């Protein structure tokens, strides 16, 4: 589904974060991207979202070379990106309103887009229907993140990109939302790429884990984790061994 071919990327006047980097992600897979601060995790996500363009090489999704944000990709950021002046319902409707604004032009909106979708299903599914008239400043961090997820899912994406979406939440809310995200991905047949700096989160969510190290990243280091998301996995020996391994790899890389 996603192919990065010999991608090099550098911000102006800095050394490259990625150099001749290649990676393949298949449809329906759940990927965690793990690495220390400044290694290029978020940049990789922005490249996949079409918000940044590689300096050289190419990124294609579903066979199309990515040159701009793609209507079927959903991006969820660390601080939710909700409009403070809009209610929860209006925020969830935002993506649909943007599509209505342009009409089905294939550029901002998929050509098969049906205008006027109702978001009530998503408000209920994410458990935020009771706060739909509240503003973001009036609800909890967990509810804000649920709003951001509902807004993205209302657009029926096939790819969900998340940038440390749960880092500012308490442990219980974080666990709930991680499980919800995984079940929504299965239910909606989504491909998931989640960026995190937390080893436990990466090992708990990603069936494949991409470990990035100090820039420039030239080779994709991938760890298979086929049992991620299964019930009881987080208390299994395999999970703890993987966490240990990732921890050692990250520290070995740093040393």
């Amino acid at each position, binding site marked *: 589904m996603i192919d990065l071919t010999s991608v090099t990327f550098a911000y102006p006047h800095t050394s490259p974060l990625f150099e001749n980097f290649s990676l393949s992600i298949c449809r329906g897979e759940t990927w965690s991207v793990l690495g220390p601060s400044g290694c290029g995790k978020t940049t990789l996500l922005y490249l996949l979202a079409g918000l940044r363009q590689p300096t050289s090489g190419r990124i294609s999704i579903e066979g199309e070379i990515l040159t701009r944000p793609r209507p079927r990709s959903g991006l969820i950021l*660390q601080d939710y990106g909700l409009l403070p002046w809009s209610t929860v319902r209006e925020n969830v409707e*935002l993506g649909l309103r*943007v599509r209505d604004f342009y009409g089905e032009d294939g550029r*901002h909106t998929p050509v098969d887009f049906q205008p006027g979708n109702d978001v009530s299903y998503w408000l209920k599914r994410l458990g935020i229907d009771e706060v739909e008239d509240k503003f973001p400043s009036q609800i909890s961090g967990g509810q804000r993140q649920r709003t951001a997820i509902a807004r993205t899912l209302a*657009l029926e994406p096939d790819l969900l990109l998340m940038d440390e979406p749960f880092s500012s939440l308490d442990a219980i809310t974080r666990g709930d939302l991680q499980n919800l995200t995984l079940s929504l991905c299965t239910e909606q047949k989504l491909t998931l790429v989640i960026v995190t700096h937390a080893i436990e989160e990466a090992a708990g969510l990603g069936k494949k884990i991409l470990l990035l190290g100090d820039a420039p990243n030239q080779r994709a280091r991938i760890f298979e984790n086929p049992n991620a998301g299964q019930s009881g996995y987080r208390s299994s020996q395999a999970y703890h061994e993987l966490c240990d391994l990732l921890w050692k790899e990250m520290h070995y890389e740093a040393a």
Partner: protein
Amino acid sequence: MKRRDALIAALGLLLVWQILAMVVNLPILPDPFKVFNVFVRELQNGLSKHFVFSLWRVFAGMALSVLIAAPVGLAIGGSKKLDRLFSPLIYLLYPIPKVVFVPVVILFLGIGDTAKIAIMFLILFFQITVLVRDQAAGLAPQLIQSLQSLGAGRRALFRFVYIPASLPAILTALRQSIGTAVAVLYITELSATKYGLGYYIYYNGSTLLDYPAMYAGVVAMSMLGLGMYFSVDWLERKWCKWKFVT
């Protein structure tokens, strides 16, 4: 602020005025009751016409300023290129006291309403542009990026982010400028017109020496400023509900 508190403050001010009038005890400072009676009488005697002229000028000046300055501020704040081009110009022009251009504007635009409105525009334009530009430029990049990821291009960003984000800045700029706008209005109405509260106050105070009528004009001008101030507050409560929730 509660309405009751505002009412108490107003009564306090009237009380201070009453006491001052009693202490000074001169025709140049009549008490509030006398002024109120004259105010009611003068309303039927032409004061309302002067009020309408002033209201029209100040409203036109402010509306024109918002209609031109808000899009200019949005465009500069939303584009780094335009910001680089225009910000040095605004930086240089902003601190210049525009009121000194009154004679120049009158020379160019004549003595009619156009010149009076243009002077208010000159002053308000910069205040609104600067506040709106800063608001638009200070928006969190994550907000813009998450909108872009939902498919928003430049037009949708303006519609869904820049304009609603700048609305409070526009209203703040308006609220801050009302005092200046009414003061400038007074100056522009001192000469070259026979209608307007500035003319009315000056004519009654300096030519007819009718002090109660002059104070009636001052009250009318204060009501003009206060009315506009309250209107902006009302608009803010209506359009920016999110700022008032707890």
